[in-house]
Protein backbone atom coordinates (compact mmCIF):
# COMPACT_ATOMS: atom_id res chain seq x y z
CA UNK A 1 0.00 0.00 0.00
CA UNK A 2 2.92 2.35 0.71
CA UNK A 3 3.56 3.02 -2.99
CA UNK A 4 0.01 4.40 -3.30
CA UNK A 5 0.56 7.12 -0.72
CA UNK A 6 1.55 9.79 -3.29
CA UNK A 7 -1.79 9.10 -5.01
CA UNK A 8 -3.60 9.32 -1.68
CA UNK A 9 -1.89 12.64 -1.03
CA UNK A 10 -3.28 13.95 -4.33
CA UNK A 11 -6.72 12.69 -3.33
CA UNK A 12 -6.40 14.46 -0.01
CA UNK A 13 -6.05 17.79 -1.79
CA UNK A 14 -9.62 17.42 -3.05
CA UNK A 15 -11.11 17.40 0.44
CA UNK A 16 -11.31 20.17 3.04
CA UNK A 17 -8.87 19.87 5.92
CA UNK A 18 -10.11 17.62 8.72
CA UNK A 19 -12.18 15.43 6.40
CA UNK A 20 -9.71 12.55 6.29
CA UNK A 21 -12.46 10.01 6.92
CA UNK A 22 -13.90 10.98 3.52
CA UNK A 23 -10.77 9.45 2.00
CA UNK A 24 -11.63 5.98 3.25
CA UNK A 25 -13.75 5.04 0.23
CA UNK A 26 -11.49 6.31 -2.58
CA UNK A 27 -8.38 4.87 -0.88
CA UNK A 28 -10.03 1.46 -0.46
CA UNK A 29 -11.15 1.52 -4.09
CA UNK A 30 -7.61 2.28 -5.25
CA UNK A 31 -6.17 -0.46 -3.03
CA UNK A 32 -8.60 -2.99 -4.47
CA UNK A 33 -7.76 -1.92 -8.04
CA UNK A 34 -4.14 -2.54 -7.26
CA UNK A 35 -4.34 -5.81 -5.32
CA UNK A 36 -7.67 -7.25 -6.40
CA UNK A 37 -8.94 -7.29 -2.84
CA UNK A 38 -8.41 -5.50 0.47
CA UNK A 39 -6.09 -7.34 2.84
CA UNK A 40 -5.85 -6.97 6.63
CA UNK A 41 -2.48 -5.28 6.19
CA UNK A 42 -4.16 -2.68 3.95
CA UNK A 43 -6.69 -1.90 6.70
CA UNK A 44 -3.90 -1.46 9.21
CA UNK A 45 -1.95 0.70 6.78
CA UNK A 46 -4.98 2.89 6.11
CA UNK A 47 -5.72 3.24 9.83
CA UNK A 48 -2.16 4.44 10.35
CA UNK A 49 -2.22 6.74 7.31
CA UNK A 50 -5.64 8.35 7.80
CA UNK A 51 -5.79 8.14 11.58
CA UNK A 52 -9.39 6.89 11.47
CA UNK A 53 -10.70 4.16 13.82
CA UNK A 54 -10.28 0.68 12.42
CA UNK A 55 -13.97 -0.05 12.89
CA UNK A 56 -14.85 2.74 10.45
CA UNK A 57 -12.91 0.99 7.69
CA UNK A 58 -14.46 -2.36 8.63
CA UNK A 59 -17.94 -0.79 8.46
CA UNK A 60 -17.28 0.61 4.98
CA UNK A 61 -15.77 -2.64 3.69
CA UNK A 62 -18.74 -4.70 4.87
CA UNK A 63 -21.38 -2.18 3.77
CA UNK A 64 -20.34 -1.98 0.12
CA UNK A 65 -20.64 -5.24 -1.78
CA UNK A 66 -18.01 -4.13 -4.29
CA UNK A 67 -15.22 -4.51 -1.77
CA UNK A 68 -13.59 -7.92 -1.54
CA UNK A 69 -11.64 -9.26 1.40
CA UNK A 70 -10.12 -12.25 -0.42
CA UNK A 71 -8.48 -12.76 -3.82
CA UNK A 72 -10.74 -13.61 -6.77
CA UNK A 73 -10.09 -15.48 -10.02
CA UNK A 74 -8.65 -13.97 -13.20
CA UNK A 75 -12.23 -13.54 -14.44
CA UNK A 76 -14.54 -12.28 -11.73
CA UNK A 77 -18.09 -13.03 -12.84
CA UNK A 78 -20.79 -11.07 -11.04
CA UNK A 79 -24.44 -11.86 -11.63
CA UNK A 80 -27.16 -9.45 -10.55
CA UNK A 81 -29.98 -11.01 -8.55
CA UNK A 82 -32.03 -7.91 -7.82
CA UNK A 83 -35.65 -7.45 -8.76
CA UNK A 84 -35.59 -6.76 -12.51
CA UNK A 85 -32.93 -9.37 -13.21
CA UNK A 86 -34.66 -11.84 -10.91
CA UNK A 87 -37.98 -11.37 -12.72
CA UNK A 88 -36.20 -12.10 -15.99
CA UNK A 89 -34.57 -15.32 -14.78
CA UNK A 90 -31.40 -14.31 -12.93
CA UNK A 91 -31.66 -17.32 -10.61
CA UNK A 92 -31.69 -19.72 -13.57
CA UNK A 93 -28.65 -17.95 -15.01
CA UNK A 94 -26.82 -18.13 -11.68
CA UNK A 95 -27.59 -21.89 -11.51
CA UNK A 96 -26.33 -22.25 -15.07
CA UNK A 97 -23.12 -20.39 -14.20
CA UNK A 98 -22.63 -22.56 -11.11
CA UNK A 99 -23.02 -25.77 -13.11
CA UNK A 100 -20.84 -24.54 -15.94
CA UNK A 101 -18.01 -23.40 -13.69
CA UNK A 102 -18.47 -26.07 -11.02
CA UNK A 103 -18.52 -23.52 -8.23
CA UNK A 104 -21.11 -21.80 -6.06
CA UNK A 105 -21.41 -18.02 -5.67
CA UNK A 106 -18.56 -16.80 -3.51
CA UNK A 107 -16.16 -19.50 -4.75
CA UNK A 108 -13.25 -19.62 -7.21
CA UNK A 109 -12.41 -22.44 -9.62
CA UNK A 110 -9.44 -24.56 -8.55
CA UNK A 111 -7.39 -23.30 -11.52
CA UNK A 112 -7.97 -19.71 -10.35
CA UNK A 113 -9.53 -18.75 -13.68
CA UNK A 114 -13.07 -17.89 -12.61
CA UNK A 115 -14.77 -16.71 -9.49
CA UNK A 116 -18.51 -16.26 -9.18
CA UNK A 117 -20.45 -13.74 -7.10
CA UNK A 118 -24.00 -12.51 -6.87
CA UNK A 119 -24.53 -8.78 -6.50
CA UNK A 120 -27.37 -6.36 -5.92
CA UNK A 121 -28.62 -3.94 -8.57
CA UNK A 122 -26.09 -2.93 -11.24
CA UNK A 123 -28.30 0.03 -12.25
CA UNK A 124 -28.99 -1.44 -15.66
CA UNK A 125 -32.50 -2.80 -15.12
CA UNK A 126 -33.54 -1.93 -18.67
CA UNK A 127 -31.16 -4.56 -20.00
CA UNK A 128 -31.77 -7.28 -17.39
CA UNK A 129 -30.63 -9.89 -16.64
CA UNK A 130 -27.18 -8.47 -16.09
CA UNK A 131 -23.78 -10.10 -15.70
CA UNK A 132 -20.47 -8.29 -15.26
CA UNK A 133 -17.04 -9.79 -15.89
CA UNK A 134 -14.17 -7.89 -14.29
CA UNK A 135 -16.44 -4.87 -14.13
CA UNK A 136 -17.51 -4.94 -17.83
CA UNK A 137 -21.26 -5.15 -18.28
CA UNK A 138 -22.90 -7.84 -20.41
CA UNK A 139 -26.57 -7.11 -21.00
CA UNK A 140 -29.75 -9.13 -21.48
CA UNK A 141 -27.96 -12.37 -20.78
CA UNK A 142 -29.19 -15.81 -21.74
CA UNK A 143 -27.67 -19.24 -21.09
CA UNK A 144 -26.29 -19.31 -24.67
CA UNK A 145 -24.80 -15.84 -24.38
CA UNK A 146 -23.22 -16.85 -21.07
CA UNK A 147 -21.63 -19.97 -22.60
CA UNK A 148 -20.17 -17.90 -25.42
CA UNK A 149 -18.94 -15.30 -22.96
CA UNK A 150 -17.25 -17.84 -20.69
CA UNK A 151 -15.63 -19.62 -23.66
CA UNK A 152 -14.23 -16.35 -24.97
CA UNK A 153 -12.85 -15.54 -21.53
CA UNK A 154 -11.26 -18.97 -21.31
CA UNK A 155 -9.45 -18.26 -24.55
CA UNK A 156 -8.17 -15.11 -22.94
CA UNK A 157 -10.24 -12.65 -24.99
Amino acid sequence: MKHLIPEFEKLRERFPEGFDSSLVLPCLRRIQEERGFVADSDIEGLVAYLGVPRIQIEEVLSFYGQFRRAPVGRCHVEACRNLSCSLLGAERLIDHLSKKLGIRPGETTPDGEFSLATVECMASCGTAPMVAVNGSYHEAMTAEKLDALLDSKRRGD
Partner: protein
Amino acid sequence: MPRIYIDGLPYEADSRQTVMEVAAANGIVLPGFCWHPKLSVAGNCRLCAVQVEGRSWVEISCNMPVAQDLKVLTDSDIVREYRKSILALTTLNHPVDCGICDKAGECLLQDYHYEHNGAPSTSHEVKVHATKFHALSSRITLDNERCVLCSRCVRFTHEISKTKSLGIVQRGDTSLVRASGDGAFETDAYSDNVVDLCPVGALLSRSFLYKSRVWYLKATPSVCPGCARGCAVNLWHRKPEWKLQALDARHNRAIERITPRDNPAVNGPWICNRGRDLAPLFERERATQAICAGFSVATPAAIEGARSLIERARRPVALVSSWASNEELAAFAAALGRHFTVFVKRDREPEPGEVVADDILICADKNPNSTGALANFASAWGPGSTLPEGTDLLLVWGEGFDLAQVPQSLRTIVLDAWKNPGHARADVFIPVSIQTERRGTYTNFEGTVSGFEACFEKDDSVAHAEDLFAALAAANVAAA
Protein backbone atom coordinates in the same frame (compact mmCIF):
# COMPACT_ATOMS: atom_id res chain seq x y z
CA MET B 1 -35.83 31.35 26.67
CA PRO B 2 -38.41 30.06 24.20
CA ARG B 3 -41.66 28.65 25.51
CA ILE B 4 -42.96 25.47 23.94
CA TYR B 5 -46.23 23.62 24.42
CA ILE B 6 -46.32 19.87 24.94
CA ASP B 7 -49.82 18.43 24.80
CA GLY B 8 -51.18 21.91 25.41
CA LEU B 9 -49.11 22.68 28.50
CA PRO B 10 -46.43 25.42 28.39
CA TYR B 11 -42.79 24.65 29.26
CA GLU B 12 -39.81 26.98 29.41
CA ALA B 13 -36.91 25.71 27.33
CA ASP B 14 -33.32 26.57 26.57
CA SER B 15 -32.90 27.57 22.92
CA ARG B 16 -30.24 24.85 22.51
CA GLN B 17 -32.54 22.07 23.72
CA THR B 18 -34.51 19.59 21.68
CA VAL B 19 -38.14 18.74 22.35
CA MET B 20 -37.02 15.38 23.78
CA GLU B 21 -34.72 17.14 26.26
CA VAL B 22 -37.42 19.55 27.36
CA ALA B 23 -39.83 16.66 27.81
CA ALA B 24 -37.29 14.65 29.80
CA ALA B 25 -36.43 17.65 31.97
CA ASN B 26 -40.12 18.03 32.83
CA GLY B 27 -40.78 14.40 33.62
CA ILE B 28 -42.56 13.63 30.35
CA VAL B 29 -41.46 10.22 29.13
CA LEU B 30 -41.26 9.97 25.36
CA PRO B 31 -40.43 6.43 24.26
CA GLY B 32 -37.17 5.86 22.44
CA PHE B 33 -34.39 3.30 22.03
CA CYS B 34 -31.58 5.33 20.53
CA TRP B 35 -31.80 8.61 22.43
CA HIS B 36 -29.69 8.91 25.56
CA PRO B 37 -29.11 12.16 27.44
CA LYS B 38 -25.32 11.69 27.46
CA LEU B 39 -24.88 10.57 23.84
CA SER B 40 -25.19 12.30 20.50
CA VAL B 41 -28.48 12.15 18.61
CA ALA B 42 -28.76 9.27 16.16
CA GLY B 43 -32.47 9.51 15.43
CA ASN B 44 -32.63 6.01 14.02
CA CYS B 45 -35.28 4.28 16.13
CA ARG B 46 -38.02 6.78 15.16
CA LEU B 47 -40.01 5.88 18.26
CA CYS B 48 -39.91 9.30 19.92
CA ALA B 49 -41.88 10.88 17.08
CA VAL B 50 -44.35 13.61 17.98
CA GLN B 51 -46.80 15.62 15.91
CA VAL B 52 -46.35 19.35 15.51
CA GLU B 53 -49.76 21.00 15.70
CA GLY B 54 -50.90 22.03 12.26
CA ARG B 55 -48.77 19.45 10.48
CA SER B 56 -50.27 16.23 9.20
CA TRP B 57 -47.37 13.87 9.93
CA VAL B 58 -44.85 13.14 12.68
CA GLU B 59 -41.25 14.17 13.35
CA ILE B 60 -38.72 12.79 15.82
CA SER B 61 -38.52 14.78 19.03
CA CYS B 62 -34.90 13.82 19.82
CA ASN B 63 -33.69 15.88 16.85
CA MET B 64 -36.33 18.61 16.89
CA PRO B 65 -34.94 21.95 18.08
CA VAL B 66 -37.27 24.05 20.19
CA ALA B 67 -38.78 27.23 18.79
CA GLN B 68 -40.90 29.91 20.37
CA ASP B 69 -44.51 28.74 20.74
CA LEU B 70 -43.80 25.35 19.16
CA LYS B 71 -46.79 23.13 19.90
CA VAL B 72 -46.22 19.39 19.90
CA LEU B 73 -48.60 16.53 20.56
CA THR B 74 -47.21 13.35 22.05
CA ASP B 75 -50.44 11.37 22.18
CA SER B 76 -52.45 12.21 19.08
CA ASP B 77 -54.10 9.50 16.99
CA ILE B 78 -51.39 9.82 14.34
CA VAL B 79 -48.59 9.52 16.93
CA ARG B 80 -50.21 6.49 18.56
CA GLU B 81 -50.70 4.75 15.22
CA TYR B 82 -47.15 5.61 14.17
CA ARG B 83 -45.61 4.23 17.37
CA LYS B 84 -47.61 1.06 16.95
CA SER B 85 -46.24 0.64 13.43
CA ILE B 86 -42.67 1.37 14.49
CA LEU B 87 -42.90 -1.22 17.26
CA ALA B 88 -44.34 -3.73 14.80
CA LEU B 89 -41.26 -3.10 12.62
CA THR B 90 -38.86 -3.30 15.58
CA THR B 91 -40.33 -6.59 16.75
CA LEU B 92 -40.47 -8.02 13.23
CA ASN B 93 -37.24 -9.98 13.60
CA HIS B 94 -36.88 -9.73 17.36
CA PRO B 95 -37.06 -13.22 18.90
CA VAL B 96 -39.69 -13.76 21.58
CA ASP B 97 -37.21 -15.28 24.00
CA CYS B 98 -38.07 -13.06 26.95
CA GLY B 99 -38.38 -16.25 29.02
CA ILE B 100 -34.64 -16.84 28.79
CA CYS B 101 -33.46 -13.27 28.23
CA ASP B 102 -31.50 -11.62 31.04
CA LYS B 103 -33.01 -8.24 30.13
CA ALA B 104 -36.57 -9.43 30.77
CA GLY B 105 -38.11 -7.22 33.40
CA GLU B 106 -36.00 -4.21 32.51
CA CYS B 107 -36.30 -4.30 28.71
CA LEU B 108 -37.50 -1.15 26.98
CA LEU B 109 -38.88 -3.14 24.06
CA GLN B 110 -41.08 -5.17 26.39
CA ASP B 111 -42.29 -2.01 28.12
CA TYR B 112 -42.95 -0.08 24.92
CA HIS B 113 -44.58 -3.01 23.17
CA TYR B 114 -47.11 -3.40 25.95
CA GLU B 115 -47.61 0.34 26.33
CA HIS B 116 -47.81 1.39 22.69
CA ASN B 117 -48.61 -1.70 20.63
CA GLY B 118 -49.57 -4.90 22.43
CA ALA B 119 -50.95 -6.49 19.29
CA PRO B 120 -49.75 -9.87 18.05
CA SER B 121 -47.43 -9.79 15.07
CA THR B 122 -49.17 -9.58 11.70
CA SER B 123 -46.11 -10.96 9.91
CA HIS B 124 -46.19 -14.48 8.54
CA GLU B 125 -42.57 -14.36 7.40
CA VAL B 126 -39.87 -16.38 9.11
CA LYS B 127 -37.82 -14.11 11.34
CA VAL B 128 -34.33 -13.22 10.13
CA HIS B 129 -31.86 -15.19 12.20
CA ALA B 130 -28.52 -13.81 13.26
CA THR B 131 -25.63 -14.59 15.55
CA LYS B 132 -26.45 -15.50 19.12
CA PHE B 133 -23.84 -15.59 21.90
CA HIS B 134 -21.29 -13.64 19.88
CA ALA B 135 -18.42 -12.91 22.23
CA LEU B 136 -17.96 -9.20 21.76
CA SER B 137 -15.26 -9.39 24.42
CA SER B 138 -14.36 -11.66 27.31
CA ARG B 139 -16.87 -9.68 29.39
CA ILE B 140 -19.80 -9.14 27.04
CA THR B 141 -21.89 -11.45 24.91
CA LEU B 142 -23.98 -10.16 22.01
CA ASP B 143 -27.23 -11.61 20.73
CA ASN B 144 -27.66 -10.06 17.29
CA GLU B 145 -31.21 -11.36 16.93
CA ARG B 146 -32.30 -9.19 19.83
CA CYS B 147 -30.35 -6.12 18.69
CA VAL B 148 -32.55 -3.23 17.52
CA LEU B 149 -29.56 -1.36 16.02
CA CYS B 150 -30.11 1.72 18.17
CA SER B 151 -26.32 2.31 18.03
CA ARG B 152 -26.13 3.49 21.66
CA CYS B 153 -23.23 1.10 22.29
CA VAL B 154 -21.39 2.29 19.18
CA ARG B 155 -21.79 5.94 20.16
CA PHE B 156 -20.68 5.16 23.71
CA THR B 157 -17.32 3.79 22.56
CA HIS B 158 -16.88 6.72 20.17
CA GLU B 159 -17.97 9.53 22.49
CA ILE B 160 -17.52 8.46 26.10
CA SER B 161 -14.86 5.75 26.43
CA LYS B 162 -13.15 7.05 23.26
CA THR B 163 -11.91 3.60 22.22
CA LYS B 164 -13.98 3.77 19.00
CA SER B 165 -14.10 0.02 19.20
CA LEU B 166 -17.68 -0.83 18.19
CA GLY B 167 -19.39 -0.34 14.87
CA ILE B 168 -22.22 -1.64 12.72
CA VAL B 169 -21.03 -3.83 9.88
CA GLN B 170 -23.00 -5.20 6.89
CA ARG B 171 -26.20 -3.38 5.97
CA GLY B 172 -29.98 -3.55 6.01
CA ASP B 173 -31.49 -6.42 7.96
CA THR B 174 -28.14 -8.21 8.05
CA SER B 175 -26.53 -5.34 10.00
CA LEU B 176 -24.55 -6.47 13.00
CA VAL B 177 -22.88 -4.68 15.88
CA ARG B 178 -19.27 -5.81 15.92
CA ALA B 179 -16.06 -4.93 17.73
CA SER B 180 -13.12 -3.71 15.67
CA GLY B 181 -10.53 -6.30 14.79
CA ASP B 182 -7.78 -4.63 16.83
CA GLY B 183 -9.08 -5.80 20.22
CA ALA B 184 -9.78 -2.25 21.40
CA PHE B 185 -13.11 -3.26 22.94
CA GLU B 186 -11.43 -5.95 25.03
CA THR B 187 -9.22 -3.34 26.67
CA ASP B 188 -11.94 -0.69 27.00
CA ALA B 189 -12.02 -0.05 30.75
CA TYR B 190 -15.65 1.14 30.51
CA SER B 191 -17.01 -1.47 28.09
CA ASP B 192 -19.62 -2.91 30.46
CA ASN B 193 -21.59 0.34 30.33
CA VAL B 194 -22.92 -0.80 26.96
CA VAL B 195 -24.84 -3.54 28.81
CA ASP B 196 -26.74 -0.90 30.78
CA LEU B 197 -27.13 1.26 27.69
CA CYS B 198 -28.58 -1.54 25.59
CA PRO B 199 -32.36 -1.02 25.61
CA VAL B 200 -32.98 -4.71 24.90
CA GLY B 201 -31.28 -8.00 25.74
CA ALA B 202 -28.68 -7.85 22.98
CA LEU B 203 -25.63 -6.91 25.03
CA LEU B 204 -25.30 -8.94 28.18
CA SER B 205 -22.74 -9.24 30.90
CA ARG B 206 -21.11 -12.65 30.80
CA SER B 207 -20.55 -12.57 34.54
CA PHE B 208 -24.28 -12.02 35.22
CA LEU B 209 -25.56 -14.25 32.40
CA TYR B 210 -28.41 -16.48 33.66
CA LYS B 211 -27.53 -15.72 37.26
CA SER B 212 -30.87 -14.32 38.32
CA ARG B 213 -34.12 -12.87 37.05
CA VAL B 214 -34.04 -9.19 37.87
CA TRP B 215 -37.39 -9.22 39.67
CA TYR B 216 -35.84 -11.39 42.38
CA LEU B 217 -33.22 -8.71 42.99
CA LYS B 218 -33.18 -5.48 44.91
CA ALA B 219 -30.85 -2.55 44.20
CA THR B 220 -29.28 -0.97 47.25
CA PRO B 221 -27.74 2.47 46.69
CA SER B 222 -24.05 2.42 47.47
CA VAL B 223 -20.71 3.97 46.64
CA CYS B 224 -18.02 2.15 44.71
CA PRO B 225 -15.00 1.75 47.01
CA GLY B 226 -12.67 0.91 44.10
CA CYS B 227 -11.02 4.33 43.91
CA ALA B 228 -11.16 7.88 45.22
CA ARG B 229 -13.79 8.90 42.62
CA GLY B 230 -16.50 7.27 44.75
CA CYS B 231 -18.92 6.54 41.92
CA ALA B 232 -22.56 6.08 42.85
CA VAL B 233 -23.56 2.47 42.26
CA ASN B 234 -26.39 0.08 42.88
CA LEU B 235 -25.54 -3.23 44.53
CA TRP B 236 -28.02 -5.84 43.36
CA HIS B 237 -28.79 -8.67 45.74
CA ARG B 238 -31.65 -11.05 46.45
CA LYS B 239 -34.79 -9.51 47.86
CA PRO B 240 -35.45 -10.78 51.40
CA GLU B 241 -38.89 -12.06 50.33
CA TRP B 242 -37.19 -14.21 47.67
CA LYS B 243 -34.69 -15.68 50.09
CA LEU B 244 -33.51 -19.10 48.94
CA GLN B 245 -34.19 -21.88 51.41
CA ALA B 246 -32.94 -25.04 49.75
CA LEU B 247 -29.96 -23.85 47.73
CA ASP B 248 -26.67 -22.56 49.07
CA ALA B 249 -27.51 -19.87 51.64
CA ARG B 250 -24.61 -17.78 50.30
CA HIS B 251 -26.90 -16.80 47.40
CA ASN B 252 -28.90 -14.71 49.87
CA ARG B 253 -25.83 -12.64 50.77
CA ALA B 254 -24.28 -12.47 47.32
CA ILE B 255 -23.90 -9.29 45.30
CA GLU B 256 -25.27 -10.50 41.98
CA ARG B 257 -24.24 -7.45 39.97
CA ILE B 258 -23.08 -3.87 40.36
CA THR B 259 -24.49 -1.16 38.10
CA PRO B 260 -24.00 2.61 37.96
CA ARG B 261 -26.41 4.91 39.78
CA ASP B 262 -26.72 8.24 38.02
CA ASN B 263 -24.94 10.92 39.99
CA PRO B 264 -24.17 14.02 37.88
CA ALA B 265 -21.85 15.38 40.59
CA VAL B 266 -19.54 12.36 40.49
CA ASN B 267 -19.82 9.81 37.73
CA GLY B 268 -22.90 10.60 35.67
CA PRO B 269 -24.49 7.35 34.51
CA TRP B 270 -21.20 5.45 34.03
CA ILE B 271 -18.80 3.34 36.07
CA CYS B 272 -15.64 1.50 35.08
CA ASN B 273 -15.44 -2.27 34.64
CA ARG B 274 -13.33 -2.57 37.77
CA GLY B 275 -16.18 -1.14 39.80
CA ARG B 276 -18.46 -3.88 38.50
CA ASP B 277 -15.95 -6.52 39.51
CA LEU B 278 -15.78 -5.57 43.18
CA ALA B 279 -18.26 -8.19 44.39
CA PRO B 280 -15.50 -10.82 44.85
CA LEU B 281 -13.58 -8.24 46.91
CA PHE B 282 -16.52 -7.96 49.30
CA GLU B 283 -17.12 -11.70 49.24
CA ARG B 284 -13.65 -12.81 50.31
CA GLU B 285 -13.49 -15.07 53.34
CA ARG B 286 -14.53 -13.02 56.32
CA ALA B 287 -12.83 -12.88 59.70
CA THR B 288 -15.47 -13.72 62.28
CA GLN B 289 -13.35 -14.88 65.22
CA ALA B 290 -11.88 -12.41 67.67
CA ILE B 291 -8.41 -13.21 69.01
CA CYS B 292 -6.81 -12.06 72.25
CA ALA B 293 -3.27 -13.06 73.31
CA GLY B 294 -3.27 -15.90 70.79
CA PHE B 295 -6.57 -17.39 71.92
CA SER B 296 -9.92 -17.35 70.11
CA VAL B 297 -12.27 -15.38 72.33
CA ALA B 298 -15.70 -13.82 72.16
CA THR B 299 -15.72 -10.33 70.69
CA PRO B 300 -16.60 -8.59 74.00
CA ALA B 301 -13.54 -10.25 75.62
CA ALA B 302 -11.32 -9.04 72.77
CA ILE B 303 -12.75 -5.52 73.14
CA GLU B 304 -11.91 -5.65 76.85
CA GLY B 305 -8.36 -6.85 76.06
CA ALA B 306 -7.89 -4.04 73.53
CA ARG B 307 -9.31 -1.50 75.96
CA SER B 308 -6.80 -2.44 78.64
CA LEU B 309 -3.91 -2.26 76.14
CA ILE B 310 -5.04 1.24 75.10
CA GLU B 311 -5.43 2.26 78.72
CA ARG B 312 -1.86 1.20 79.56
CA ALA B 313 -0.25 2.67 76.43
CA ARG B 314 1.65 5.93 76.76
CA ARG B 315 2.51 6.52 73.12
CA PRO B 316 -0.05 4.68 71.05
CA VAL B 317 -0.18 5.04 67.27
CA ALA B 318 -3.17 4.29 65.07
CA LEU B 319 -3.18 3.61 61.36
CA VAL B 320 -6.74 4.33 60.33
CA SER B 321 -8.48 2.93 57.29
CA SER B 322 -9.12 4.96 54.15
CA TRP B 323 -11.98 2.50 53.50
CA ALA B 324 -13.69 3.66 56.68
CA SER B 325 -16.79 5.85 56.43
CA ASN B 326 -16.82 9.46 57.61
CA GLU B 327 -19.05 8.42 60.50
CA GLU B 328 -16.61 5.73 61.66
CA LEU B 329 -13.69 8.14 61.35
CA ALA B 330 -15.59 10.76 63.34
CA ALA B 331 -16.39 8.14 65.99
CA PHE B 332 -12.68 7.23 66.20
CA ALA B 333 -11.68 10.89 66.41
CA ALA B 334 -14.23 11.53 69.17
CA ALA B 335 -13.41 8.46 71.26
CA LEU B 336 -9.69 7.87 70.71
CA GLY B 337 -8.35 10.67 68.53
CA ARG B 338 -6.71 12.63 71.31
CA HIS B 339 -5.07 9.57 72.86
CA PHE B 340 -3.50 8.24 69.65
CA THR B 341 -1.03 9.64 67.18
CA VAL B 342 -3.04 8.96 64.02
CA PHE B 343 -1.90 8.28 60.49
CA VAL B 344 -4.15 7.62 57.50
CA LYS B 345 -3.00 4.59 55.55
CA ARG B 346 -4.00 3.39 52.12
CA ASP B 347 -5.77 0.04 52.46
CA ARG B 348 -5.37 -0.86 48.81
CA GLU B 349 -2.90 -0.09 46.03
CA PRO B 350 -3.41 -0.66 42.29
CA GLU B 351 -3.33 -4.34 41.40
CA PRO B 352 -1.38 -5.78 38.46
CA GLY B 353 -3.30 -5.22 35.25
CA GLU B 354 -5.62 -2.64 36.79
CA VAL B 355 -5.97 0.74 35.06
CA VAL B 356 -4.16 3.06 37.46
CA ALA B 357 -5.75 6.33 36.36
CA ASP B 358 -7.36 7.96 33.36
CA ASP B 359 -9.06 11.23 32.47
CA ILE B 360 -12.58 9.78 32.56
CA LEU B 361 -13.33 8.36 36.02
CA ILE B 362 -10.54 6.15 37.33
CA CYS B 363 -8.32 7.63 40.06
CA ALA B 364 -4.87 6.44 41.09
CA ASP B 365 -5.86 6.32 44.78
CA LYS B 366 -7.67 2.99 45.11
CA ASN B 367 -9.35 3.90 48.37
CA PRO B 368 -12.79 5.53 48.62
CA ASN B 369 -12.31 7.80 51.60
CA SER B 370 -8.71 9.02 51.76
CA THR B 371 -10.04 12.59 51.58
CA GLY B 372 -12.50 12.03 54.43
CA ALA B 373 -9.83 10.34 56.54
CA LEU B 374 -7.29 13.08 55.94
CA ALA B 375 -9.91 15.69 56.85
CA ASN B 376 -10.09 14.06 60.30
CA PHE B 377 -6.41 13.17 60.71
CA ALA B 378 -3.92 15.20 58.72
CA SER B 379 -0.97 12.77 58.65
CA ALA B 380 -0.73 10.24 55.85
CA TRP B 381 1.16 6.95 56.19
CA GLY B 382 3.24 6.31 53.10
CA PRO B 383 5.79 3.74 51.90
CA GLY B 384 8.68 5.50 53.68
CA SER B 385 6.84 6.25 56.92
CA THR B 386 8.14 4.97 60.25
CA LEU B 387 6.53 4.76 63.66
CA PRO B 388 7.37 7.62 66.02
CA GLU B 389 10.13 7.02 68.61
CA GLY B 390 8.82 5.29 71.72
CA THR B 391 5.63 3.90 70.20
CA ASP B 392 4.34 1.27 72.62
CA LEU B 393 1.04 0.32 70.98
CA LEU B 394 -0.03 0.12 67.34
CA LEU B 395 -3.68 -0.04 66.32
CA VAL B 396 -4.14 -1.08 62.70
CA TRP B 397 -7.61 -0.52 61.26
CA GLY B 398 -8.29 -2.11 57.92
CA GLU B 399 -6.04 -3.71 55.34
CA GLY B 400 -2.84 -2.63 53.67
CA PHE B 401 -0.37 -2.92 56.56
CA ASP B 402 1.75 -5.99 57.24
CA LEU B 403 2.39 -6.54 60.93
CA ALA B 404 5.67 -8.24 60.00
CA GLN B 405 7.02 -4.70 59.47
CA VAL B 406 6.97 -3.98 63.22
CA PRO B 407 8.94 -5.65 66.04
CA GLN B 408 7.25 -8.65 67.69
CA SER B 409 7.63 -6.87 71.04
CA LEU B 410 5.32 -3.99 69.98
CA ARG B 411 1.78 -4.42 71.26
CA THR B 412 -0.70 -4.48 68.39
CA ILE B 413 -4.46 -4.29 67.96
CA VAL B 414 -5.95 -5.11 64.56
CA LEU B 415 -9.46 -4.32 63.36
CA ASP B 416 -10.21 -5.96 60.05
CA ALA B 417 -13.09 -7.57 58.20
CA TRP B 418 -11.37 -10.26 56.16
CA LYS B 419 -9.31 -13.31 57.02
CA ASN B 420 -5.56 -12.78 56.86
CA PRO B 421 -2.86 -15.06 58.30
CA GLY B 422 -1.08 -11.93 59.55
CA HIS B 423 -3.81 -11.32 62.12
CA ALA B 424 -2.35 -14.13 64.25
CA ARG B 425 0.59 -11.83 65.08
CA ALA B 426 -1.70 -9.27 66.71
CA ASP B 427 -2.14 -9.17 70.47
CA VAL B 428 -5.80 -8.42 69.91
CA PHE B 429 -7.80 -8.95 66.74
CA ILE B 430 -11.40 -7.77 66.47
CA PRO B 431 -13.46 -8.56 63.35
CA VAL B 432 -15.42 -5.61 62.00
CA SER B 433 -18.25 -5.12 59.52
CA ILE B 434 -17.87 -4.14 55.86
CA GLN B 435 -19.48 -1.49 53.70
CA THR B 436 -22.33 -3.74 52.60
CA GLU B 437 -23.38 -4.26 56.23
CA ARG B 438 -23.67 -0.66 57.34
CA ARG B 439 -24.70 2.76 56.14
CA GLY B 440 -22.40 5.75 55.95
CA THR B 441 -20.74 8.31 53.71
CA TYR B 442 -17.46 8.68 51.83
CA THR B 443 -15.86 11.92 50.69
CA ASN B 444 -14.38 11.62 47.23
CA PHE B 445 -11.15 13.26 46.05
CA GLU B 446 -13.09 16.34 44.92
CA GLY B 447 -14.77 16.72 48.31
CA THR B 448 -18.18 15.40 47.23
CA VAL B 449 -19.86 13.41 49.99
CA SER B 450 -21.85 10.35 48.86
CA GLY B 451 -23.86 8.00 51.02
CA PHE B 452 -24.26 4.23 50.95
CA GLU B 453 -26.84 1.95 52.52
CA ALA B 454 -26.56 -1.51 54.07
CA CYS B 455 -27.47 -4.51 51.90
CA PHE B 456 -27.09 -7.27 54.46
CA GLU B 457 -27.21 -7.85 58.21
CA LYS B 458 -23.80 -8.26 59.80
CA ASP B 459 -22.85 -11.48 61.57
CA ASP B 460 -23.28 -11.34 65.36
CA SER B 461 -19.59 -12.12 65.83
CA VAL B 462 -18.41 -8.93 64.09
CA ALA B 463 -18.66 -5.40 65.42
CA HIS B 464 -19.49 -2.15 63.66
CA ALA B 465 -16.30 -0.09 63.99
CA GLU B 466 -18.42 2.99 64.70
CA ASP B 467 -19.84 1.33 67.84
CA LEU B 468 -16.49 -0.17 68.79
CA PHE B 469 -14.46 2.94 69.48
CA ALA B 470 -16.57 4.22 72.34
CA ALA B 471 -16.21 0.78 73.94
CA LEU B 472 -12.43 0.83 73.36
CA ALA B 473 -12.03 4.20 74.98
CA ALA B 474 -11.30 3.63 78.65
CA ALA B 475 -12.98 6.11 80.96
CA ASN B 476 -9.74 7.93 81.68
CA VAL B 477 -8.75 7.98 77.99
CA ALA B 478 -12.04 9.47 76.90
CA ALA B 479 -11.75 12.08 79.58
CA ALA B 480 -8.13 12.96 78.78
